[in-house]
């Protein structure tokens, strides 16, 4: 099956909007439906669909809306837990945080729109995920972003990165929700398919949360927010289901413009409507616009709906019924309201200067009936539209060997950061080069463009700790939040890499003393109809599921973005994991920089390996395979580290990730603006690895804690009793990084390390 986006010169199915006689033959193919699917629609309707109906089906039966290649897999993820308040299926998941409050959160992709227009694509991505969260009655309190671009040496990557960061900042900053964390990776396979995932966290009173199921025959459908234009007609849904190909220009007029000011009014208005008890149910309008919102609300409530498109406030006068039904204009919400409350709802919308119109009613027919004034222009069973899209089995097949290009760039990085004459085998030069690699280095250039503090909840801003920490004043607790996923490692081993994404997230939380409550994820993959991609997807979902079970973290929501590939190949398989954890005492959250004189202790089963590491990448040595991880022992180490952090005795905590232990120690030294002396021989002995591997090898299960020298023995003793490996590595002293391992030694002034680590801004401007 090949899916394709309609081009302007292709027949525009549905355009007639009146009767079936106007729909060109085989229009369904142009709209991305297979012959098989079209036949199925005809069967379900007992007739051919007309233009309006076909347009609606084509969108709701797209991968983006119907999850037709991924739904079966997602069933593997554990979704139950004591603290789960809302699980997958609602606009966002939510977990109980005590005191009558719940934290809602979700991550979503806006990859293809961002590749077309980075600023608006990213901005509207943030807008969309915010709406998902306030649609369930939660006030957004934080945004995180997870970004992937091609190598920074590519001009196009820098252009996309620049635009995406500005777009996220524009939307989040203007609406007054802090962007408190995120991650960015630069890897060649994302050159033609950048990934822009945004996560939103919201806080709600549990008794004010609302679901999206429509109910109550005779109740009114109220559309409020922005007016409806031709934005993204055939946009997000179709774009998200088709490979980007040559001839993209045709899609461009479908760029959607974000209006954060409109959204901020919409947000306040929605929350005030909910607090006033005026709504029966609420749903945002996202991909496939009114069709999917109304359809899903009706499907969940087991009811029918009737919508008169002429009552929808339009931005452009001459829109066709099908255009109104599938428009993806931003900043709109759909509510079900009791007839007697309609006036009050309209009055509140007017207070917030946001548009509002009663556009239809809830019926008991089980059908979605579309009227154009009084004339019926569409009438389909809700269940056919929303629930009966065929689901496909994947045909996974392990590829033989490494499917990605990976160029050797270590000497370039050494030349750039350690000097022209430096030796690319010398550990000092390697460390400096790794710190200067944009995957390892500070992302300050990006996160300084985000307001990370509005809302007065941010106890730990980006880079101040491994997880962002937010106060929940209302519930006397704090939460830690993190988002992670290293696609390169998932490419090496989809199962192990996905496990690691979950572990990395939990490790970051542990460094802040936070215990995971729930997880959300976004599965960014290539074309699932290709056996190798199907295999990646299959393995990665199993990895996520097993890691969640081992850590006992329920998955409360997520999003799938498939077909991230072009004729240049597929992206790295990239499951992105977002996690929320709770912590009792935000005063005790340590930073990343140790106090002078403190001992540094590595805890956990961390067994460094160069496989899939940043160093392997820079040397052009990427290949299949990652070492197996004993998830249970990592889980034990995570729990141990968390308790140690909660004791308040740690002056710093930082987990080992990209660039290995040497990079982790360097980051700690840079944060403290002071030196670190460490001897990694105990690690070399325990794991039987080489000095170089101890320095730069990567893998899960390593957390460095800094304690007062007087407490170090106690910490190591506690670890032994908890059966967690703990190795004293050295201490914070001097003004250099002196890290030795077996015969190798890296010795770099902290100032030089910091220069390399902070080189992103410079590389954005020059190069």
């Amino acid at each position, binding site marked *: 099956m090949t899916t394709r986006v309609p081009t302007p010169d292709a027949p525009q199915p549905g355009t007639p909007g009146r009767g079936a006689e106007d729909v060109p033959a085989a229009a369904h193919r142009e709209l991305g439906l297979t012959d098989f699917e079209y036949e199925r629609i005809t069967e379900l309707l007992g007739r051919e669909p007309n233009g309006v109906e076909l347009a609606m089906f084509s969108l709701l039966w797209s991968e983006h809306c119907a999850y037709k290649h991924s739904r079966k897999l997602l069933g593997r993820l554990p979704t139950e837990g004591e603290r789960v308040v809302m699980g997958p299926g609602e606009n966002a998941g939510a977990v109980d945080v005590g005191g009558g409050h719940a934290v809602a959160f979700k991550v979503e992709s806006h990859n293809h729109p961002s590749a077309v227009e980075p600023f608006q694509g990213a901005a509207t991505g943030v807008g969309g995920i915010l709406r998902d969260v306030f649609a369930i009655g939660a006030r957004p309190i934080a945004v995180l972003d997870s970004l992937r671009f091609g190598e920074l040496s590519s001009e196009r990557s820098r252009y996309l990165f620049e635009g995406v960061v500005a777009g996220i900042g524009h939307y989040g900053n203007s*609406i007054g929700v802090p962007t408190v964390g995120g991650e960015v990776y630069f890897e060649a396979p994302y050159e033609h398919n950048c990934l822009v995932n945004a996560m939103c966290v919201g806080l709600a009173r549990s008794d004010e949360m609302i679901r999206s199921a429509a109910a109550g025959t005779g109740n009114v459908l109220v559309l409020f927010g922005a007016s409806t234009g031709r934005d993204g007609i055939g946009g997000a849904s179709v774009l998200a289901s088709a490979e980007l190909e040559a001839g993209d220009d045709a899609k461009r007029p479908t760029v959607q413009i974000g209006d954060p000011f409109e959204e901020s009014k919409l947000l306040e208005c929605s929350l005030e409507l909910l607090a006033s008890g005026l709504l029966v149910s609420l749903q945002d309008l996202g991909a496939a616009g009114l069709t999917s919102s109304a359809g899903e609300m009706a499907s969940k409530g087991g009811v029918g709906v009737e919508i008169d498109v002429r009552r929808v406030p339009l931005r452009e006068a001459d829109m066709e019924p099908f255009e109104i039904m599938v428009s993806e204009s931003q900043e709109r919400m759909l509510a079900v309201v009791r007839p007697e409350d309609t006036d009050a709802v309209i009055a509140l919308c007017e207070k917030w200067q946001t548009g509002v119109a009663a556009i239809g009613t809830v019926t008991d027919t089980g059908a979605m009936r579309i009227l154009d004034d009084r004339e019926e222009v569409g009438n389909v069973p809700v269940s056919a539209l929303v629930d009966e899209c065929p689901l496909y089995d994947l045909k996974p097949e392990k590829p033989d060997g490494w499917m990605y290009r990976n160029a050797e760039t270590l000497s370039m990085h050494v030349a750039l950061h350690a000097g022209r004459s430096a030796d690319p085998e010398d550990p000092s030069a390697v460390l400096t080069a790794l710190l200067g690699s944009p995957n390892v280095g500070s992302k300050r250039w990006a996160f300084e463009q985000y307001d990370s503090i509005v809302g007065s909840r941010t106890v730990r801003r980006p880079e101040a700790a491994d997880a962002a920490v937010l106060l929940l004043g209302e519930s006397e607790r704090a939460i830690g939040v993190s988002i992670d996923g290293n696609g390169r490692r998932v490419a090496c081993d989809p199962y192990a890499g996905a496990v690691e994404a979950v572990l990395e997230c939990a490790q970051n939380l542990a460094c802040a003393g936070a215990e995971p409550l729930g997880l959300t994820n976004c599965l960014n993959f290539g074309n699932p109809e290709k056996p190798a991609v199907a295999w990646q997807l299959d393995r990665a979902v199993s990895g996520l599921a097993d890691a969640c079970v081992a850590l006992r973290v329920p998955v409360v929501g997520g999003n799938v973005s498939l077909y991230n590939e072009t004729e240049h190949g597929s992206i790295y398989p990239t499951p992105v994991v977002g996690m929320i954890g709770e912590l009792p005492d935000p005063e005790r959250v340590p930073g990343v920089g140790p106090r002078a004189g403190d001992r540094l202790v590595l805890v956990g089963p961390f067994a460094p390996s160069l496989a899939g590491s940043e160093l392997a990448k820079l040397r052009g040595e990427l290949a299949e395979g990652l070492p197996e991880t004993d998830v249970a022992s990592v889980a034990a180490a995570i729990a141990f580290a968390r308790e140690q952090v909660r004791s308040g005795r740690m002056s710093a905590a930082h987990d080992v990730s990209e660039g290995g232990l040497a990079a982790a120690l360097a980051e700690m030294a840079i944060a403290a603006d002071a030196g670190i002396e460490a001897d990694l021989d105990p690690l070399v002995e325990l794991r039987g690895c080489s000095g170089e591997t101890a320095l730069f090898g990567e893998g899960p299960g390593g957390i460095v804690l800094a304690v007062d020298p007087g407490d170090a023995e106690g910490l190591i003793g506690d670890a032994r009793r908890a059966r967690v490996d703990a190795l004293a590595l050295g201490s914070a002293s001097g003004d250099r990084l002196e890290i030795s391992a077996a015969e190798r030694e890296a010795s770099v002034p902290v100032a030089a390390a910091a220069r390399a680590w902070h080189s992103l801004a410079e590389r954005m401007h020059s190069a």
Partner: protein
Amino acid sequence: MIGVIQFPGSCDERDALQACERVGQARMVWHEETELDRIDGVVVPGGFSYGDYLRAGAIARFSPAMEAVARFAAAGGPVLGICNGFQVLCEAGLLPGALLPNTGLRFVCRQVAIVAEGSDSPFTAELGQGERLSVPVKHMTGRFFAADDELDRLEDAGQIAFRYAQGDNPNGSARDVAGVTNEAGNVLGLMPHPEHAVDPLTGSDDGLALFRAFERQPAAA
């Protein structure tokens, strides 16, 4: 009672309210309110009033509440404009100068050091000349501009309330100006956010000094 003006598109109004509540009582003032009933001090908060469309602060300054604020300020009432509030007050002519896009052309959010200049304003009464405060900035349009002779005049008149510490100017402001007052000193506008510096847990509490001014200042009108 301190009033915090709330426009459509305000972002930091809740933060400002909470900061005020640390020193006294406060309430929101909706932008359509025409009278500042029983209000003894006003905060015009940060954010993106009316989306900052057209020009930061350009639309908000026409709101009924801002007309009331103008009368309140003319009668000597204390008015604190923070970030977008500073922009609104400049647009309204209650403060000298104007705010232009940062020379870096990007939004910038970071903790900076600002220095009190010993101005003659109730808001800085607690601060000695040269006292440094650690306060965050977060804005896209924070480059203070006034013509050179106007800047001279402001300096002579003691209307420069705060400057960015050496090397900490985040936006290219003329002469490192971070905050200015009106001639009478009862209206202060600044780009840094003192309401985000009221608790060491979230960064610093150096900003509290500005809010305490409201408590010392007796009601104006």
